[in-house]
């Protein structure tokens, strides 16, 4: 039972990550990492699994970057 719940939570977490990927590339990445500008499509493909897994870190980083830019 506990294992089923953990697996379902993990699945939901990863699904949110999948939904986050296009949003991240469209809105976030240019704010958090200047080096990503002009990067190849291969780069975006290769970092996608990481975006799916680490989406809360990137979301937090994006929000922080937005706040800093608004402050400036």
């Amino acid at each position, binding site marked *: 039972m506990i294992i089923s719940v953990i697996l379902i939570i993990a699945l939901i977490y990863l699904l949110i990550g999948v939904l986050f990927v296009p949003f991240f590339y469209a809105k976030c990445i240019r704010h958090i990492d200047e080096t990503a500008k002009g*990067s190849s499509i291969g780069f975006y493909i290769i*970092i996608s699994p990481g975006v799916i897994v680490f989406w809360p870190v*990137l979301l937090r980083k994006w929000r922080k970057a937005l706040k800093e830019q608004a402050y400036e």
Partner: protein
Amino acid sequence: MSTAYSAVGWNRQKKIYDGWIAAFCISYLALFISLTLLFNSEATFETILIRSTSTLAVLLLHIILSIGPLTRLNKKFMPLLYNRRHLGVTMFSFSAVHGIFGIIQFHSLSNTNPLLSLFLSNTNYGSIPAFPFQALGFFALIIFFLMAITSHDFWLHNLSPIVWKTLHMFVYAAYILVVMHVMLGVIQYEKNPVFVLILFTGSASLIILHLLAGLKERKIDKMKFKLQEDGFVYVCEADEIEDSRAKIFCIDQERIAVYRHEQKLYAIHNVCKHQGGPLGEGKIVDGCITCPWHGYQYLPHNGQSPPPFKERVSTYDVRVNHNKVWLNPIAFAEGTEREGALL
């Protein structure tokens, strides 16, 4: 170093490195499959696939974990370190093939979800010899997966070098899980002790290599610098430092690299901003101190990466008096220009 990210940072050396990895893996698989067919003609395709990929992944893991201490013991192993990331991703790929086919073979034929079956088909969690070893392999695979998907400089920058390094240090936890996974698997399913003996030899070799490398580093860190003058400490004779090379000194728990370049000595912090590589073990290439790990570069006189790159390390004052090198261990701010000591 580059101004925009690429999918894979290939250059000539990395292509050669990857070529050797591919040749080694193909040769190993061919040999393993041939020997299995020769001595065990009843083995199924799935069994051969699961066993060949698992043994290859374990072998690659031992090579990966040996590279760090080997390079600290002998600089000749440094080229192995240069593209260790690709070796790690290769190891994960074979582990994943082993894990996926293992789950398909042993857990996909019942009505239970295969992942649930992985944890529930054997519930002897209280027994050491009958412990469900497949669960241990699963957790090791998760660690390898997290390491593989973050094996890009984008993640190094965005997770921060400290978090990234910490995550990748979990390879040792994964190694312990792999050892237990293999040992318990052999105990529960095999009668031939050869796999246990091979793994025991591999583990013992890794432990010895890490101990030797640790002792060598400890020796450098424990060096005492007694002579002091105006905040400077005497570290060595000038001719002990080869041209375009450095010597590393650990003073007040900080490692400082003193480089010799164009008849001058320069001192910078020893830790590369990229992945914490030992800058003092590198050399000067095209006028820049070049990290031996991944080729990140810094100018000797100010510790800054050449434009347009922005990495910076601390610099230190160094002076030479009658061939004696004196170093001030108080760091200047990262990227501060120092004129160096004329020889």
